[in-house]
């Protein structure tokens, strides 16, 4: 009932592990697979190894989470070793790469073409890492076009462009990606950035001071973005942001998403959250006499 296919990826359910939540190595990707995820995205990989920002890199507040991890990752060379063999996985795995400009993106994509990832995702939307994403000016239609075109030349894998919900003209960005050859849009990255201050010391809690907001706090904004994008682009959309349960996942589908990303929910319910959400979705779908998830996509537009 939950089986679906997204950009040619066969999935047992529409739930995708979000990039950067677990996913730094095969161990924790396996954990998310065993937790019931329909597909997995790896932590974004850059050309060089990065330690990321100092701690604290996360701060959980009443309605979600702030993070400023700063793209810590072992770099391309180590990633090529870690992900050389993906045969132990039975769900599709999406590679994610991050870079400062189109040339670097293209050279990463070229290397990743040698690995057996099922798709490739380009986050052009991180709000808290100097030299990358929004802080490198990648949140414009022009940059989106340049980077997507450059990567498109290097990869035959389905190409997903991940955009920022913080950008008012989000549809323009998605259209630029679609025209440049993207096969899907991921909407989206964290919102903000935001800040939390420890009032006793008067210091921001995150070491980078500001961080992207995720979790329940951003869900209504993501749902609105997905709703808008569904009317603006023809390529399929991943709805990602604040999905905690079956109801939230169905809401994303109804707004127009064909697949649903899950990240911060793992903080509350562990990697087993995928199984929990799937069960809740199935129960709702049965109770409402639908037969498949595909029927739900875009219902809110009718």
């Amino acid at each position, binding site marked *: 009932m939950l089986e679906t296919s997204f950009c040619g990826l066969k999935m047992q359910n529409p739930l995708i592990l979000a990039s950067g939540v677990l996913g730094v190595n095969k161990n*924790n990707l396996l954990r998310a697979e065993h937790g019931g995820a329909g597909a997995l995205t790896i932590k974004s990989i850059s050309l060089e190894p990065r*330690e990321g920002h100092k*701690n604290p890199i*996360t701060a959980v507040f*009443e309605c979600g989470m702030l993070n400023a991890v700063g793209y810590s*990752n072992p770099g391309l060379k180590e990633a090529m070793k870690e992900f050389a063999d993906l045969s132990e996985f039975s769900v599709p795995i999406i590679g994610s790469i991050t870079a400062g400009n189109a040339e670097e993106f293209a050279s990463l994509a070229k290397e990743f073409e040698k690995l057996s990832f099922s798709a490739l995702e380009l986050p052009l939307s991180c709000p808290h890492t100097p030299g990358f994403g929004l802080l490198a000016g990648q949140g414009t239609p022009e940059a989106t076009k340049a980077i997507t075109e450059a990567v498109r030349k290097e990869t035959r894998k389905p190409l997903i462009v991940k955009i920022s919900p913080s950008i008012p003209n989000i549809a323009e960005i998605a259209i630029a990606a679609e025209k440049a050859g993207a096969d899907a849009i991921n909407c989206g990255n964290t919102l903000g950035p935001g800040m939390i201050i420890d009032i006793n010391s008067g*210091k921001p809690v995150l070491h980078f001071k500001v961080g992207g907001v995720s979790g329940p706090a951003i869900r209504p904004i993501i749902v609105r973005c997905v709703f808008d994008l569904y009317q603006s682009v023809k390529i399929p959309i991943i709805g990602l942001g604040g999905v905690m349960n079956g109801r939230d996942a169905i809401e994303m589908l109804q707004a127009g998403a064909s697949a649903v990303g899950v990240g911060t929910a793992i903080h509350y319910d562990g990697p087993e959250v995928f199984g929990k959400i799937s069960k809740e979705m199935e129960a709702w779908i049965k109770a409402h006499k639908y037969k498949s998830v595909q029927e739900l996509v875009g219902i809110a537009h009718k």
Partner: protein
Amino acid sequence: MPTSDYPVSYPIKKIVSETPSIKTFYLDSEISSSPGQFVMVWIPGFDEKPFALTKNGKEIAITAKKRGAFTEKLFSLKEGSLLGIRGPYGKGFEFKGAKKACIVAGGIGMAAVILLAEEMAKKKIKIDFVQACRCKEEVLFEKRIGKIAKLHVATDDGSCGVKGNACTVLEKLLKEKKFDCVYCCGPEPMMVSVLALCNKFKAPAQFAVERYMKCAHGICGNCSLDEHLCCKDGPVFAREQLGKSKEFGKTHYEKSGKKTVI
């Protein structure tokens, strides 16, 4: 629904020099945790690292050994300086139903088991406590342990107790006695040897394992030990779990996530 989870800072109330390289920092904050769990300690605006609580309840304390940048900065703080705390995190030791226990600690691994000893003593559990350290000056919490357990010290240079390592003492104890459980925390090579000994004597055992921690709440994935997340599923693991591990004693993940041989 969700609660918040970020550091809140408190003034340091008291600093005690325990040994030439180890200090205890007391804070006026209340946290109830179970032995083996840990907290994240934040030097506001500087960095944040994992530590065990060595006092728990109406006042809390952490005990740190000077190693690198973070602990150097920590050691430069004065009474009244602010330290942020969040937690507790992870799963602690299990000692329900135990009557006779052996605790084995190496170096600053002591910090993770001192509250365990005190909690077990409250439950009238008989404890043999093996402490291994470099030399006489580095023996930690001698008085606190003396009150509640039989202390066996092993030093590298023989300046206190037996000359040798923790396993020298533990092997002798395992030959003489049967323990309901052996509890261990120390450098990973030492824990590997203790695990082997416990396997040989078929003694149930639990180990507090260190991995590089960042978020401490099961999100970043840096603290992997096989499919386990050390910050959530650990840091305490049972002998059987570690026996099956492909990574214990062999590999861990650095701050960048790079897999490295221990």
